Every structure is written in structure tokens, then in C-alpha cells.
């Protein structure tokens, strides 16, 4: 099976879906002639032309709103946010219009829209460019939120997102763009709403999403090698819909849970997972549910410290050892 980068996987997904469905078009800043700020859309404009790959001016609220309106009439726009942080100026369009128009119309309208781009810290660009809004957006019924951690998941989930008839907020990670994983050559889809057990273990469950899932895989290796503890890693992949069954099955097996994310702790995704476990797996738990999140401050610039602010393998290991 070929090894390709997370970036190439996204690029392939976009190309395949643009080719498959004439209603799919890509719109965003620098996505066409510039080939994408992070080169995710490289070559697509040359291949598919200006109708299908559209350079937009810096006007996020305008072109997100345009995409919502166009999707109401049956187009399937894929909007690239150069950074998900920039979506904050388009919040009304995302939350009120994409998120609520189906409901407010009593189900007469649907919004087959994807908004995608990187949503991560860790690249020394300061707080305004490092936001992780998956918890905010998952708090809006009507929106779906996915956070792929690998090239395989990125490709399969993006194709599913584009085919989904509801608005999907698709969150990538610039630190993963250059990493490689095995991805099959034949077409496949990864369903939205299904978690992936990325490592099996009997002693402890790491429940994570996005790059935090990769961090947990490293932590699990350390735990096994140095402490003889067998941790399993459940990658949520999708935040909403959420694979609650997989979460409960894992914890019922291991009886211990550490919920890991690069989001901030307060009202983060981990808080929701902990609440579910507290309610539905209370009798299965042999230890308190613990969490590892980004340290609770705006993203620091300082390159020497920023990666410390995010969960890293050692922090995750230390946390796990508190209950093992």
C-alpha cells in the first residue's frame, strides 16, 4: 500500500470528489492560482479550472455566506479556511445560517457544505492563529464536526463529508500535513460518526481526536516499554456525531480512561466524554476519569514553550500513571 502524506490524501479526496460530482466546487483564499497556502489544493486549479476551484478575496464571512446560500440551491461547496481561526469572522454565517436554517425552515432546507482547514496550535503563530473550535461548533446542533488524525482518515472522511447532506466542519492540522501513512489506491470512505481503535490494550483507554490521537499512540508505546502497561487508543475521528458505543466499549474493557485533546479544558470535548462515562460507565470504572488538554491560556507564541502547552506524550504518560 502506498505511503502518502496527510496533505496528499486531502488533495486526492478533493480531486476525486470534484471529478465525481459537478456540483462540488472548492472556494477559499489562495486555493487556486497560489496552489493553497498549505498546498493542500496543489494542482487542482490547473486540472479543474476556475469554475471548480475558486480564489476568494479575504472575506470569510462573505464567501462562507455565499457557500451556504449556494448549497441551499443544491451546490456542494467545499470552503477552505486558511486557518480555522479565521472562521471567527464568519461565525454568524456558520452558526446561524449553516447551523440553523434547516431547523428554522422546519426541514425544508438542507446545507450540503464542507468547511475545512487547519485548526491547531503548535506552530508558533500566536493565539489568533491557533484556535481549536471543535467544541464550540459541536455545541451547535445542525453542524457536524470531524477531526481526522491520519492520512487514511483524512481522505476517507473528507470524501464522506462532501457527500453528506448536512454541513460538516472539517478540522485538519498543519503539523500533520507532512506526515505519511498508508493509504489504499482504490476508493474508500470513512463514515462520519465512527471512532477508530488505533491501538488495542487491556489496562487503560486513551480517548482522543486529531493530533492528540497520535500523541496518545506515542504515550502508549512508552507505557508499554517502560511500565508494562497496555493502553489502547480510541481515535474519535468525529466529534459530532460521536461514536458513544465505541467509547463505552473501550472503557468497559479497560476500566480506566484518560481523555486527551489539544483543545482547552473548560467545556472541551473531553468534558463531554467524561460526562458520558460518568453517567454510563460509572460501575465499570476502577479509577477517576482524567483529562489532558492544552494548558488553559491563549496559545503562547514562544517556540520553546508552545509544544509544552499542548499535550505531549510525556504529559499523557504521567497522567496515565496516576491511575495505573
Amino acid at each position, binding site marked *: 500500500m502506498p505511503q502518502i502524506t496527510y496533505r496528499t490524501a486531502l488533495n486526492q479526496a478533493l480531486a476525486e470528489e470534484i471529478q465525481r460530482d459537478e456540483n462540488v466546487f472548492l472556494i477559499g483564499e489562495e486555493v487556486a492560482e497560489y496552489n493553497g497556502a498549505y498546498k493542500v489544493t496543489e494542482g487542482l486549479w490547473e486540472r479543474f479550472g476556475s469554475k471548480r476551484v475558486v480564489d476568494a478575496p479575504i*472575506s470569510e464571512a*462573505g464567501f462562507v455566506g455565499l457557500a451556504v446560500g449556494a448549497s441551499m440551491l443544491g451546490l456542494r461547496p467545499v470552503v477552505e479556511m486558511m486557518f480555522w481561526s479565521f472562521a471567527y469572522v464568519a461565525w454568524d454565517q456558520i452558526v446561524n445560517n449553516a447551523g440553523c436554517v*434547516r431547523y428554522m425552515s422546519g426541514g425544508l432546507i438542507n446545507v450540503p457544505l464542507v468547511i475545512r482547514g487547519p485548526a491547531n496550535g503548535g506552530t508558533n503563530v500566536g493565539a489568533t492563529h491557533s484556535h481549536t473550535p471543535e467544541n464550540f461548533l459541536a455545541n451547535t446542533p445542525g453542524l457536524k464536526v470531524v477531526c481526522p488524525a491520519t492520512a487514511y482518515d483524512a481522505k476517507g472522511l473528507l470524501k464522506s463529508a462532501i457527500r453528506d447532506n448536512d454541513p460538516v466542519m472539517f478540522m485538519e492540522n498543519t503539523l500533520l500535513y507532512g506526515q505519511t501513512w498508508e493509504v489504499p489506491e482504490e476508493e474508500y470512505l470513512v463514515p462520519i*460518526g465512527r471512532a477508530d481503535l488505533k491501538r488495542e490494550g487491556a489496562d487503560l483507554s486513551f480517548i482522543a481526536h486529531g493530533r492528540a490521537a497520535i500523541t496518545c499512540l506515542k504515550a502508549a508505546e512508552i507505557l508499554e516499554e517502560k511500565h508494562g502497561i497496555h493502553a489502547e487508543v480510541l481515535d474519535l475521528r468525529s466529534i459530532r456525531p460521536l461514536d458513544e458505543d465505541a467509547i463505552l466499549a473501550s472503557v468497559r474493557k479497560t476500566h480506566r480512561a484518560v481523555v486527551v485533546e489539544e483543545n482547552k479544558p473548560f467545556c472541551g470535548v473531553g468534558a463531554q466524554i467524561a460526562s458520558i462515562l460518568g453517567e454510563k460507565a460509572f460501575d465499570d470504572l476502577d479509577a477517576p476519569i482524567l483529562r489532558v488538554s492544552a494548558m488553559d491560556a491563549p496559545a503562547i507564541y514562544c517556540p520553546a514553550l508552545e509544544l509544552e502547552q499542548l499535550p505531549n506524550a510525556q504529559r499523557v504518560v504521567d497522567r496515565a500513571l496516576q491511575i495505573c
Partner: protein
Amino acid sequence: METAVAQSEFASADINLRLTPDDKIRILRDMYRVRRFEQISLKFYNQGKMGGFLHLYTGQESVAVGICSLLGEHDHVITAYRDHGHALAVGMSMDECMAELYGKATGCSKGKGGSMHFFAPDKNYWGGHGIVAGQTPLGLGLAYALKYKGLKGCALAFLGDGAVNQGVYHESLNLAGLWDIPAIFVIENNRYSMGTSLARSSAFKNNLAERADGYEIDWELINGSDLYEIRAKTWTAMARAHEHSRPAVLEIDTYRYYGHSVADANAKKYRSTEEIEEYKNNHDPLRLYRRRLIAEGVLDDATADRLDEEAKHEAAEAAKFADDSPFPNASDIVADVYWEVDNDTERGRTGKHFFND
């Protein structure tokens, strides 16, 4: 004694010469229907039959009715929260609109949207939007989709004079001008953004529409009390959108007789009674159009009165329909959130979508 009917130079515009007597009567009937629908809705709002806000369109009927009388197969409409007039003008029934105000399951949005959120996609009517100017890029997107699909049409995005200072309106103008999108932005200038007058809210040279110059978009000023002028000038913009895929900004001088909403406690403080009466007496679009049709010999007073009575009757019947209709069930609260769930697809059955107790 009624004054003589002023001539409208726009009566002889091609688009108006095409109107048959029946067309003209239908326009008058639609204006009466909007006015009487709202009169009845106000009555029952005050009796506590409905909640929330009620933004009345009374005084502005000629704008929605006049423009919607021009719509073709691929022409679309979207507006803000003062949306009852547009809804009825595109052909929605009084029953479904009144039931929506009552929060009933028979409402156009099944009681989930309320006064500000009427929708009828089957009639090219895309709402009904609560956030000021938030609908403007959606209108742009509808027009974008028409162009993308190669359909000859346009999208008319209505907004108030209070919306023109929102950033997203300007973003929409820029994109429309930049990309030749057949979107027409119709500013219904009723001179007040809630309780703040135009003079206290907007910086401009001569009018609001001319800001379009900065985006190389054609613009036009329209007298909202002249139905023929509304139709003639809007049609010019629509024809340009259809033939050349160019946007436009239209600013229509109009007036609302009631407050911003019925809950507007200061409705009679920020403008004088004399000002309101002046409009009612001398600029009321319904009275002016009625007089014009009588002067043209299209109908007589008795027929016009009958149209008015029929509209009142229809509105009263709609209130009965709404009153007799059931509320949605509690289980309906979590329906119409996700298309995939509502349609019970494989996607809709995968993962947990709702996190209720």
C-alpha cells in the same frame, strides 16, 4: 375629498404596459392581503396568542408585492426578519404563515421558526432571517448557484436601511461586483434602524445606494409609494442580471407605520405622530395604487372594497386555522436538525447525533 391621482411616468414602462387588468387587480389584492394579515396578527399578538417579536411591514407593502410580481422561474427572494409581506407576495398561504406565528405544527416552519423565519423554497423564497444583514451573502450565494448552473435568473436580497453598515453586506457587494453575480440588493429604506434614524446611523453623501459605486455596481433610487416605479426600475435591474449577470443595489424610499417590532416600547418617541400621519395620508402605497387603478378604470370603489373585505376575511379565517391547529409534539424538538437523520440514512444512523438526558 380625495386629491387627484398623480401620474406615474412609469405607468408606460414596458414591463407595466404588459400588465393586464387582472394582473393589476391581483397586485392590489396581494397588498390588501399583506396589510390585513398583519392587522389580524397584531390583534392576536396583543391577545397573547403568539410569542416573540412581530415586525410589521405595514406601509411597505408595495415593495414586496411590486417586486415579487416580477419573479420568473429562476428568480429567487431572501429577506430579513420583517418577512411577512414577502412571504405572502411569493404565494405562501395566510394559513401556514399565521400558524407559524402561533407556533403551530401546521406553520410553514412547523412552529420552529416563528415570525422572523418564514421559508418556502418551492416558491423560491429562502426566508426570513433574524440577524441584520446576515441574509445578504446567502442571497449572493443563491445567485452564485444560478450562474454556476447556467440558469438565467437572479436573487433579490432584501435588507433594511439599518443593515447597510454591517460588514457582511459590503463583503457581499464586493464579491457580487468582482464576480459578476446576478444578485440584486434591495434596501427598503424606512428611515429607522429600530429607534435610530438614518441620520444618526449612517454616513453618506446623498443616499445609501450610491455606496455601490465603490464596487462598480449599478444603483437606483425608487419611490416606494409608486408601485409602477418599483416594478419598472426593479425590472431594469433584473433584466441586466438576467442578460449580463450583473448585480445591482436598489434603494426604495418607504415607511413603516408601526414600531420596529410590536415590542418597540419607544415606537412613538423617536418620530412624531405628524410624521407618521403624513405618510399614512399622503404616501400610503395601497391607497395610492387603489386610486390609480380606479382612475385607470381597472376597477371601481366597490370592487376595491370587496378585495379588502376578502383579505380581511381570509386573515380572520387564517387566525381560526392557526388557533385550531395543534402545537408540535415534544418529540418534534429534535427533528429537522440533520437531513441525514430525518431521512433515516446510513449516515444518519451512524454515531450519536443528539446528547439529551
